[in-house]
């Protein structure tokens, strides 16, 4: 299989992929709204950045939050909304950086992924997913707590159970999902 150079994707494909990824994010977010902090969104934003570049990746994150952050049954707050948009775009940027540094360059086919030859790459993706989520949680929790006038340490204490769920679930989503999705989307984009 050919490795599609990300910067050579036609703009129309990038635009379609941005819309597609944003739609998938929204659908999955609303479908999983009953499970707090367990979402596929972060994985999809990361993959968008990985496949299309930093700006399109960040756009997928921001566009998703534009809808999900405003039409949310748990309510919305402008400062938290900005924080989540910024935090989410980080997944896209790091996705792009991961591709730039050659992470997952061995993902040449879905067959390899299925035959579990990429567990080491999966582990790297899982670790990246965990750390990104850790930074995202720390940032958004601190913003959420500071705006109500509490000390930042309270953010860590109060957000601990949610952070664990978010970070561990994202580790597994990145571990099991990244390689397969990247290989599958690469194949379709190259067809």
């Amino acid at each position, binding site marked *: 299989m050919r490795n599609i150079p990300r910067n050579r994707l036609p703009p129309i494909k990038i635009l379609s992929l941005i819309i597609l990824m944003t739609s998938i994010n929204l659908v999955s977010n609303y479908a999983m709204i009953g499970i707090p902090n367990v979402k596929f969104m972060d994985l999809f934003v990361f993959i968008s950045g990985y496949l299309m570049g930093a700006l399109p990746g960040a756009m997928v994150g921001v566009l998703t939050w534009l809808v999900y952050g405003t039409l949310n049954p748990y309510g919305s707050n402008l400062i938290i909304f900005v924080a989540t948009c910024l935090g989410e775009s980080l997944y896209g940027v790091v996705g792009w950086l991961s591709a730039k540094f050659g992470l997952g360059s061995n993902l040449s086919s879905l067959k390899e992924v299925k035959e579990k030859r990429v567990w080491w790459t999966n582990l790297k993706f899982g*670790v990246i997913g965990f750390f990104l989520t850790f930074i995202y949680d720390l940032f958004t929790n601190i913003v959420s707590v500071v705006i109500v006038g509490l000390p930042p340490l309270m953010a860590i204490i109060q957000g601990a159970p949610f952070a*664990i769920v978010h970070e561990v679930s994202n580790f597994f989503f990145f571990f099991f999902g990244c390689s397969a999705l990247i290989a599958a989307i690469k194949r379709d984009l190259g067809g």
Partner: protein
Amino acid sequence: MGERSSWMWISLGLTCLLIVAAYLTIYYYNESTHYKSLYERAAADLKKLTMPVNILIDYGNGTRKWYNNTLVPREASLFLATKIIASVESITYPEMGEFVTSINGVGGDPGRYWIWYIWNQNEGKWDWGPVACDKYILQDSDTVMWRYEQF
């Protein structure tokens, strides 16, 4: 894949575990602090609603058992306090009150009855209970005795 790179990723993986452990520690410490404060509040409420009394049960056969600092509701009668620490059987006399016939299965022998006493701190001796046990309202830190004796 270089050996250095492998160790870097393994270290990062272990750091993930460290973060999870730290979060769990914070979470459970926070929970324990929360439940400790709830417990202390409940204990303070309980203290307002209860009082300690000391009850001695003398079975008349050499067996004496103390129930020190037994928490009973404020304004509880001796009868209620006794029922908290022991299995009690009694007969109700409408004019007089409860007459205890058995404590913890001991009682009913001809000529022997359960009599109650209250410790007189001023004189340093046991005084006869002045009324039926259900009519006597205990005070904070009272010391009372049930004795199974020949009468």
